C-alpha cells in the first residue's frame, strides 16, 4: 500500500521528515532491510534512524512505513505543511 507523504502535492518533492515511536518498535528490522540508508540496527535490537530522509530514499521510506509490523513509523502527511510559514 502506498502511503501518501508530503511532497506529493503539486509536484514539489522535498525531504521526508520521519519519527519512529520507539516505545512501539520491537526491533523486527523490516525498515532496516527496506531502507538501509535511513534505518540501521544499533546492537542487537536498538533502532537508529535518520529523522530526515533525502529525495533518493523516498520510495524506500514509504515501503518501510507500510512494512513495519507494529506501525511505529510516522512520516509527513500528504497535506502537511513543509514549513511553519503557511498561516502566520
Amino acid at each position, binding site marked *: 500500500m502506498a502511503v501518501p507523504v*508530503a511532497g506529493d502535492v503539486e509536484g514539489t518533492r522535498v525531504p*521526508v521528515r520521519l519519527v519512529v515511536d520507539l516505545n512501539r518498535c520491537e*526491533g523486527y528490522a523490516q525498515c532496516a532491510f527496506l531502507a538501509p540508508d535511513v534505518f540501521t540496527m544499533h*546492537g*542487537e535490537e*536498538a533502532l*537508529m534512524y535518520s529523522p530526515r530522509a533525502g529525495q533518493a530514499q523516498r520510495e524506500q521510506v514509504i515501503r518501510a512505513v507500510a512494512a513495519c509490523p507494529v506501525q511505529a513509523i510516522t512520516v509527513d502527511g500528504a497535506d*502537511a505543511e513543509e514549513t511553519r*510559514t503557511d498561516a502566520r
Partner: protein
Amino acid sequence: MPADTAAREFRRQGRVVVVGASLAGLRAAETLREEGFTGSLTMIGDEPHDPYDRPPLSKQVLLGRTAADDTELPRRRRLDARWRLGVAATGLDLADRRVRLADGEEVEFDRLLIATGARARPWFRESEAALDGVFVLRTADDASRLDRKLAAGPRRVLVVGAGFTGSEIASACRERGLEVTVAERGPAPLVGALGGVVGAVAARLQREHGVDLRCGITVTSLEGDMAGRLRRAHLSDGTALDVDVAVIGLGAMRNTKWLAGSGLAAGPRGIACDAGCRAFDVHGIVTDDVFVAGDVARSPHPLFGYQFLSLEHWGNAVAQAEVAAHNMISSGLERRPHLWVPAFWSAQFGVNIKSVGVPPMGEEIVVTQGALGENRFVAAYGYQGRVIAAVAFDQARWIDFYRRLIESAAPFPPVFAGVDRRPEGARPVPADFPDPSLPTHGPTVTLSGYSPSERRLQFTPARA
C-alpha cells in the same frame, strides 16, 4: 446554552492557544484539527525552531550521524495555525484569558493548552557554567554545539550525572573513541529510575565499554584557565581531573516560572491537573479552560494509587497531548481520562533498554527471563504483591506482555513460567531504590502524591 451546543460552537469558532511548540504541543494541535476543530489555533514556542524531536539529540546527533537541525518532527496533517516561534510566554491572566509574550504581545484564548515542558538543570555555579567547554543537553542548539566540540577531539569528557541522558552521552563519547569519566552521586547509573539491581548492570556495561565510572562521587567545582576555557574538575573525594568538556546531566526543571502568580497550581514539580488534563488552580479547584500535557504536567493515575505522576517520557507527551486536545473540544461524558501506562526506552552501549510501569514504586525485583549477567533479560518490579513495572534489556518484544500484567494488577512474584526463566533469578530481592527524599540526578518518574499508607513529601507553606 446546553453544554453540547457550547462545545459544538467552540469546535466551530473557538480560539485555542498552545504554549509550547514541541512534541506535546504539535501532537495536540494535530489532534484538535483531526477531531474537527476549525477555530483559530495559535502555537507559541520559545525556541526559534519548528517542532523537533529530542531523543535523537543524545544518540544519532551526538554520534555525528544526524545534524541537530534535521530532527524536525513530521506533521500528520495540515495545521492552519498561527505560529509565534522564538518568543517565550511570560505570563498568564486567567481572568481575562490572555497569554503575555516576551515581545509584549498579548494573545487571547477561549481554551489554553500548556505544554511548556522542561529545561536542563544548569550547573549550580553560574560562573563555572559559563566556562567554554561546559554543556547541557536539552535543545537542538545544545546538541549542535556539543557535537561540534566532540568532533574536535577533546582529550577527556566529564559527564556529571549518570541518568539516562548522561549515560547516553557517555555511550556516544565512547563510540566516538573519546575518553570519558562519569561522575554519579548515587551508587550506580540509572539508579533513580531503575533501582540498584538494574543499576549494577548499567554500571558494568559502562565499565565494559571503557567508561571511567565513578559512583558515590560529586563534582564540587569546575576550573577554567585565564581564557575562560574549562581545564579541570574537582571531585568530592579530593581528586581532580583534567577535562576539556563537561556535560551536565543533572536532570530537568519544569518550565513553570512564567505561571508564577497566575493562580494555577504550578511549581517546580510541574502543573497539577486532573486525569482529563484540566489544570488545578491554587485552591485545588479544577479549571475548565486550561489544559496541560507533556513533561510539565503531573496528574493522578488510578493504577498507581492515584499518585500524581510527572513523566518525562516521549510517549506520555504524545498520549497526554491527544487526550488533552480531545477533551478541549468535548463536553461531559465524551471526555476521556489519560490512563497511559508509563513507558520509555533508552539505547546505550549497544543495548536497547525498555521500561513499562513505574519502577520506583517497586519494593522488590525478580528476573523473570534471561540473566542480568548476559545483559539480556526482563525483570519485574513488585509493589504490595502486584506487578507494578518491568524493565527489559534487549528483550523489547516482551514489554507489551508486562504492560498487560501491570494493567491487570497481576500478582507478584509472577506465577507464570516465562520463556528463558532461570532458577537463579526466581527469588525476588529488594529493588534497591535510593531514598526518594535525597537529591539525585533526577529520576524520570517523580512520585509526588499522597497515599494514606505513606508520606513522601512534606507540605511547606510559602512564607510571605
